[in-house]
C-alpha cells in the first residue's frame, strides 16, 4: 500500500469529486457502503463495483494504484471465502463485497486530503483519538521517508543485493528499529512545537468551502439511487432476483461511459 500515492492524488487532483466537500463525500461513502452491506445479490454488487470504476475513469483518477488497493481486501476475502463460505456463489459474493467496499473507500481517500476526511468526525471523538488521527498523518509521511532513506543506506553499507533475502531482512529490521527511535524523538519534538504554539488539547482543521454545489447534489443523488436499488433488491428478495442483470448492465454502461468521458477529457486537456 503506497500511502504517498494516495496523498498526492487527494491533494493535487482537480476532478469534480475533489471539489465536493468532505462531509458530502463521507455521506455518499456511507450510503454506498450501506448498499454493499445490504446487498445479497452478486450481480447487484458487481454492477455497483463497475459503476465505481466508471466514476474513477470519468474523473481520470489514478486507476492502477486505486484498483490495487481495492483488490487487496479481495485477496483476504478470498481466503476467508475459501475457508468459510458454504458455496462458490457465496464466496464470490464475499470477494465482490470486499472489493466494492474497498473501491468506495479508495475513491474517498484518493479525492479527499486525509485531515479533511477526519475533520467532520473529529469533533465527535475524544481529543486523544481525533488529534492522534491527525498526528498519525503528519508522522506517517516523515517516517515513510525516513524508513526509505535508512533502508537504502543500510543496503548500500552492507552491499546487499536481491539475492540475499536473510541479510536484507536483517537490514530491514535494523532500519525499522532506527525508525522507531526516530519516531520517539519525533513525537517529543512535535509536542515541544505544539506546546510552544499554544496547543490546548484540540487540533482544529479548517472546513473546506463549497465550490461545486451541483456536483455535490449529483453525488448525493447517485449515492441515494445506489442505496435504494440495493435495498429494493434486498427487500423484495426472490421477486427481483431474475432482474439482477439490470444493475449489472447499468454498471457496464457506466463503465463504458466513464471511460469514454475520461478519454475525451484527456484529449481536450492535451
Amino acid at each position, binding site marked *: *500500500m503506497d500511502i504517498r500515492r494516495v496523498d498526492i492524488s487527494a491533494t493535487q487532483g482537480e476532478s469534480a469529486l475533489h471539489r465536493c466537500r468532505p462531509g458530502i463525500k463521507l455521506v455518499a461513502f456511507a450510503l454506498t457502503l450501506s448498499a454493499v452491506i445490504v446487498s445479497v445479490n452478486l450481480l447487484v454488487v458487481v454492477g455497483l463495483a463497475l459503476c465505481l470504476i466508471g466514476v474513477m475513469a470519468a474523473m481520470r483518477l489514478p486507476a492502477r494504484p486505486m484498483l490495487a488497493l481495492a483488490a487487496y481486501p479481495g485477496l483476504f476475502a478470498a481466503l476467508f471465502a475459501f*475457508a468459510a463460505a458454504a458455496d462458490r456463489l457465496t464466496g464470490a459474493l464475499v470477494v465482490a463485497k470486499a472489493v466494492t467496499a474497498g473501491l468506495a473507500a479508495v475513491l474517498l481517500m484518493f479525492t479527499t486530503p486525509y485531515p479533511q476526511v477526519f475533520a467532520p468526525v473529529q469533533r465527535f471523538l475524544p481529543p486523544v483519538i481525533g488529534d492522534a488521527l491527525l498526528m498519525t498523518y503528519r508522522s506517517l509521511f516523515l517516517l515513510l521517508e525516513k524508513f526509505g532513506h535508512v533502508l537504502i543506506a543500510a543496503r548500500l553499507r552492507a552491499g546487499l543485493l536481491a539475492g540475499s533475502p536473510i541479510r536484507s531482512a536483517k537490514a530491514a529490521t535494523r532500519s525499522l*528499529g532506527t525508525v522507531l527511535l526516530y519516531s*520517539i524523538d519525533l513525537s517529543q519534538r512535535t509536542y515541544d512545537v505544539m506546546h510552544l504554539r499554544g496547543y490546548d488539547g484540540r487540533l482544529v482543521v479548517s472546513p473546506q468551502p463549497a465550490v461545486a454545489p451541483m456536483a455535490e447534489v449529483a453525488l448525493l443523488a447517485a449515492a441515494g439511487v445506489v442505496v435504494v436499488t440495493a435495498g429494493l433488491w434486498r427487500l423484495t428478495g426472490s421477486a427481483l432476483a*431474475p432482474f439482477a442483470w439490470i444493475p449489472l448492465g447499468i454498471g457496464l454502461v457506466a463503465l463504458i461511459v466513464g471511460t469514454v468521458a475520461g478519454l475525451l477529457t484527456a484529449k481536450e486537456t492535451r
Partner: protein
Amino acid sequence: MSHLHIPDGILPIWLVSAGWLICIVIVTVAVRGVPPEDLRRRIPLVGAVAALMLVAMSSEIVPIAYHINLTVVAGILLGPWLSVPTALVVVTVLAMIGHGGVTVIGLNTIVISSEMVLGWALFSALVRTLGRPRVRIAAGVATVLTLAVTTTMLVVIVALGGPIAASRESGAFDPAELRFENPFAEGVIGNIAFEEPAAHEEEPLQIARFALLVYGLGSIGWIAEALVTAGIVGFVSRVRPSLVLDGATQQERVLPGDEGVHG
C-alpha cells in the same frame, strides 16, 4: 492474520454492534486510565507509534501477502492504557484505505488492542523471569504467544458470526455451477414468469476449515513477526535499553516552563 480482513456486510449486525460497544467501553476506560495532563502530552507519541505501525504494515512479505504489524513492539513502547486508542487509530486509517471493513473497526480494535496489551504483559513477565539480557527471546516468545491467542480470538469471532450472513440469491447465476445463464435465452418475460431463484439450504459454517487455514497461514506470520519483533527489540535494547524496559511513556522530558502544567 491478527486482524479481521473480513469485508463489510458479512458478519451479523449483533456481532458488529457488540464489537463497537465493547470498543467504545475499552477506549473510554483506557483513556480515563491516563491522567488528562499526561494524555495531552502523549498524543504525538500515539500518533508517531500508530504511524510506525502503518509504515511496518506497508512492507509486505509478497508470496503470502503477509505484512508485519509491530503490535507487540507498540504495546511494549506504549503500555496498556495508550495501546487501546492507538489500536483504534491504526484500524481506522487501515479501514479508510480498504484494508478491513469499516463496520468491523470495533471488532478489529478489540483484537489489535488485545494483541498490544497482551504482548506488553507477556514481555514484561518474561523479562522479569528470564532477565534483562534475554530481551530478544522474551520479545519473540511474547509475540508468538500473543499472536496465537489473538488468532484464536479471530476464529472465535467468526464462529460466533455463524454462517456467512449473505443469502444465496443468484438471479441468473447457477450457484452450483457458478455459471451465468443468459436471461434473454427465453426472453426476459419468460425468465421473470417461470424462473424461480435457486433454493438453498442453510449450510453450517466451515469453521474447522477456516481455523485450519488461519492457523496454518497465521503460524508462518507469527514466526515472521516474532523474528522482526525480536530483532527490533534487541536493536533498541542495545541503543536505548530504557525504551523497551520502561516504555516510551517514561522517556519524555519536561520542558523548562512546562513543569507547572505537567509536573
